[in-house]
Structures are given as C-alpha cells and as structure tokens.
C-alpha cells in the first residue's frame, strides 16, 4: 500500500508499507525518474536503432564509394554507442528495508536489468545525509557508514533526489537500525519544504 508519494519535475518518490506498520514489516521506498525522461531515453534508443539501420542500408544500397563507406561506418559506430549508453539509463532506484535483517538497494535500468546489493543490518553503523560539493554544484545525498569500510556507501548511486525525498528514507533507515534519531533533535526548527 502506498503511504506517501512526493514528486517534483524530475523524480517521483513512492513509499510502500503495510497498512498497519508492525516492527517486522518490510518498508519499500522507490525513487522513479519521471515519464518525460524515460521516453527521452527510449527515443534515444530508437535513434540508435535507426542509425544502425541507416548505416547498413547505405552500405549495401549506395555502393562501396569511400565517402559513403566512411559515413556508413560512422553511423554504425554512433548507433552502437547510443545503444550501449541506453543500458546505463536508470529507470528506478529502490530501498527495501527489512527490519532486523538488512536492507536491499536496487537499481533498475531502462533495459530491464536490475542490479541489487544486500547489506546485513549488523554491518550498518549509521545512515547520514551529506552535502556533496563538486567544482560545479552542490547536492544532498544519503549515505551509509558501514563497518569495516572506509568509504561511505551511497544509497542512490545514479539518481540525485532532492532533500525532501531523502529525509523520510533517512528516518526510516534510522528507525530500522535502531538509532533513536529523535533524541538527537532537542530543538526543532521549522523548515518549510518548497516544491
């Protein structure tokens, strides 16, 4: 049952949980790239196919002149590259929280492939919201401190959902691993989430 749903221009966040949340209930959070982008990727994939088709037809139909050949090879190559790229287009990333057991991080690509990683509950030290600064921009990300690993593990590897979508997931993760984050917020501060 969908208990919470937020969306902005780029991403949609869906939270599925049991109707009567018990301690052992499984919690699932999805972040989906919005429709426009998905069809954009599908369009690019279609373009890739078209380029390959064009290349082969040019090669066979228009004879073996040099400029035509190089052009057709060019189309073929770019077509393959576009198709390869489309495998990297992410459709959805999910976090499945299984209390006392672990969490599963899943990434679903447009090509239908799903990559998942399971992290046992004992390995997670703390989930944190971090501000990442690059030479060009600054964005929020949700990461996990894992036992025995030096680097933080990103929960959402490809997508960059906004802070208002990350906060409920962070709170759910804290609750699942037993960190009572509420005791840390001794002074609440109003923060109006703007759309």
């Amino acid at each position, binding site marked *: 049952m*969908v208990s*919470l*749903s*937020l*969306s902005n*221009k780029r991403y949609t966040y*869906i939270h599925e949980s049991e109707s009567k949340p018990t301690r052992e209930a499984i919690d699932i959070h999805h972040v989906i790239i919005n429709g426009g982008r998905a069809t954009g990727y599908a369009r690019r994939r279609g373009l890739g196919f078209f380029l390959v088709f064009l290349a082969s037809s040019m090669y066979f139909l228009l004879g073996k002149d040099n400029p035509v050949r190089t052009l057709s090879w060019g189309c073929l190559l770019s077509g393959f590259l576009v198709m390869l790229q489309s495998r990297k287009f992410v459709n959805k990333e999910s976090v499945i929280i299984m209390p006392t057991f672990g969490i599963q991080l899943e990434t679903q690509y447009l090509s239908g492939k799903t990559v998942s990683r399971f992290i046992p509950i004992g390995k997670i030290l703390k989930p944190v919201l*971090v*501000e*990442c*600064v*690059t*030479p*060009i*921009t*600054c964005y*929020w990300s949700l990461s996990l401190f894992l036992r025995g690993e030096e680097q933080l593990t990103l929960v959402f590897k490809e997508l960059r959902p*906004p*802070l*208002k979508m990350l*906060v*409920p997931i962070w709170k759910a993760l804290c609750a699942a691993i037993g960190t009572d984050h509420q*005791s*840390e*917020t*001794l*002074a*609440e*501060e*109003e*923060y*109006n*989430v*703007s*759309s």
Partner: protein
Amino acid sequence: MAEPPKLRVLMVSDFFFPNFGGVENHIYYLSQCLLKLGHKVVVMTHAYGNRSGVRYMTGGLKVYYVPWRPFVMQTTFPTVYGTLPIVRSILRREKITVVHGHQAFSTLCHEALMHARTMGYKVVFTDHSLYGFADVGSIHMNKVLQFSLADIDQAICVSHTSKENTVLRSGLSPAKVFMIPNAVDTAMFKPASVRPSTEIITIVVISRLVYRKGADLLVEVIPEVCRLYPNVRFVVGGDGPKHVRLEEMREKHSLQDRVEMLGAVPHSRVRSVLVTGHIFLNSSLTEAFCIAILEAASCGLLTVSTRVGGVPEVLPDDMVVLAEPDPDDMVRAIEKAISILPSVNPEEMHNRMKKLYSWQDVAKRTEIVYDRALKCSNRNLLERLSRFLSCGAWAGKLFCMVMILDYLLWRLLQLLQPDEDIEEAPDIRLCHQRGVEVSEGLKEEDKVRNG
C-alpha cells in the same frame, strides 16, 4: 522557535583555516561575532588537500571547501567564469543577501564578487594589505582591483593608510570606503600572572623571517643592542628564508646565549612566548595594520616598531615607541623603550586594550556597512557597464565585454538549471545540551498524494 537571521552573509576568500594568518583570523573572528549577533554566516574557500566539501565550525559556522585546485600562494587558478555555477549554487542554497570578499590577492574572491554582482547581490570588499604602484605585478594587480571595485557597493579597509592606498589604487570613491580596524582576542592574550624579573630584559620578536617583515633590519639591530646592553637578551620566534642570516649573525658575534631562536611558533603558543618578554620588537617594512603588536600590547609588553603603513594608528603613544626602518634609529628606539620600561604596568595595558579593541565592536561596525550596502540601489546591466568604461581606454572596453559574457553565461545557466531547481539548504543551528550537537527539524509539507 528561533527568529530567522537578519542578514545572511557569504564570506569569500582563498585564505581560511587550516591555513593560518591575519586574514584567516579576521574572517573567523568576524564570522563568530556576527553569528552571536544573530546573523547567518557562510564561508566559501578552496579545498585544502583532503579537506573538501562542507564543514561546520564552532557556533554553526558553515564552510564550503570548494574543490578547485590552488595554484600559487594558496590562491585558486583564475578561470574567470569557471566558478560561476558553484557560486550561483551556494548563493541560492543559502539564500544569501550580502557577499563579503576578503583580500585583494585572492582570485576566488574577485571571481565570486563579479558573479554576485552579475546576479544582483549586494557586495562588500575588505582589503587587508598595502600594495605598491611601480612594479609589473602591482600594476596588474591594481588593474584587477580596479575592475573588481568599480561595481561594488561598499568597501572596508583596516586603517586610514590602507584606505588611502586602496582608494588610489582602485579609483574608488572615498565615500564608499569604511575604516574598521582589526582587533585582538584579549581573552586569549593575557599578561603573565607573575611578571618576569627586569634584571634581564627580554626582547621578543615573532614574525615570519622574510624581507617584507624586516628580517634584515634585525640582523643589524640585534648585535648592536647586545653590545650596548649586557643585560638584554632576545627571543626570536618564526621561520622563513632569512633564518639563515640570523643564524650567521649569531655565530659571527657569538650571541648563542643571548639570542634564542625558537623556529616556527604555532599560534596557540604565541601567548606563552610573549609573556616571557618585556619588550616586543616589530621591524616590518610595510604593514597595513599589524595585529602582532596588538597581541603583544594585550600581553602587557611595551612595543618598539618601525613607523610604516598603518602601524602608527594602532596603539596609543605611551604603549609604543616608533622608529624609522633604519638600524640606528631602531637602536635608539630600543634604548628609549628600555628606559621607560619600569613605568609600564602590564595589567593596566591589558585592561586598556580590552576597552580599545574587541571583535564584537568590529562586528557591529561591519553590520552597519552591510546595512548601508543593502540600501544601495539596484542597478541594471547597462548602468553597471557605464562604470567599467571609465576604467581605462582599452581596459574599460575589455571589462565591459567580460561582464557582458558573464551575464550571458548566467542566463544560459538559468535556462539549463532554473533557479527553482536549486533546493535550499536547511539552517542547522548547533545547540549544546548534554553533549549532543545536531538540531535539525524538517517539516514535511502537505504534498501527499495517494497513488
């Protein structure tokens, strides 16, 4: 619920902690005092080694260490437009109202001020140093400064001499320049509880041993004073290229037991070195302000200094003996200082310094400058371009083109990433209760849609 901050200030400079120096100290103390007055302060600087990203310092001071490589003397590589996206990001995320740049030598500061002006923010600049007019480096530096300051709202200088210097170099109207001196943390620099005995008079020197700080003068002055006064010893703290010359001087005049060389002294230990002395010697050849003599006076030391730059404005006449930057004149000044030493009372000096200089006072005065800057009218692009044209025949036109390109790039960025897409960062205030630090509350809006 705490009230929202009155002003939201972004301090920009290449020079900040973990690097240590006058500008860094100034930015830090000013920011802390502004935070106490209820404003929000964010600092932007370049990454230092591994220290990159967002850090929080005492009092909730947020520092952005932007991962741009420094290239020479800790300044960022000047790409002119490269920093536009990150500056825009930070300004929108933190909902900044005033941008305050520090130090003319900082490329990040000039670029950030330029982008902030393009995007319509109010801009204040503080100049911390004196510069020349004659050599090639200075001429170029002054041209860059002229460009940067042609369009700012207000400027701050740390002494009247510095104000004169800045106004002449940049062609800025003196009415726009405020004079706010630096200050000293008198709580940290206290005199010793027991004053060292005056049988042996100790003269302390703490400075970088470079040409600019008059290390060559020391090489002449120290042997002469040691010859005239057998009961005087010197303590020299600090390191630099001129260290070798001082060692040679010690060897030549056999002063190993009279001159103690401490090497580099970390700032946390400066006070402990100062309180072992009676007189503080400053031999700088140029100085816009000189916080070192403030620290010495706060510790109850009588100061002997060269009469250069803004130094005469810093201390009252009975706390300092001034001399020309000439060895004989300095020796005479030290003689005079030794003769008036018995009448000096360190505790009374310290109490006077507490009243004269405080960072809280600097922060209040800076607040007035910010308010004045916010009252300045908004100018559109054409009005601003006309100011640049007066910078010079060729330079004026070049500056105009640079600004037009900056404006176009900003508009392009707005198309690619609209202002609404840059989400605002929540204000995180640190509260210390039972050792736990973070206070962060987020209220989820009623955007729940049942799918």
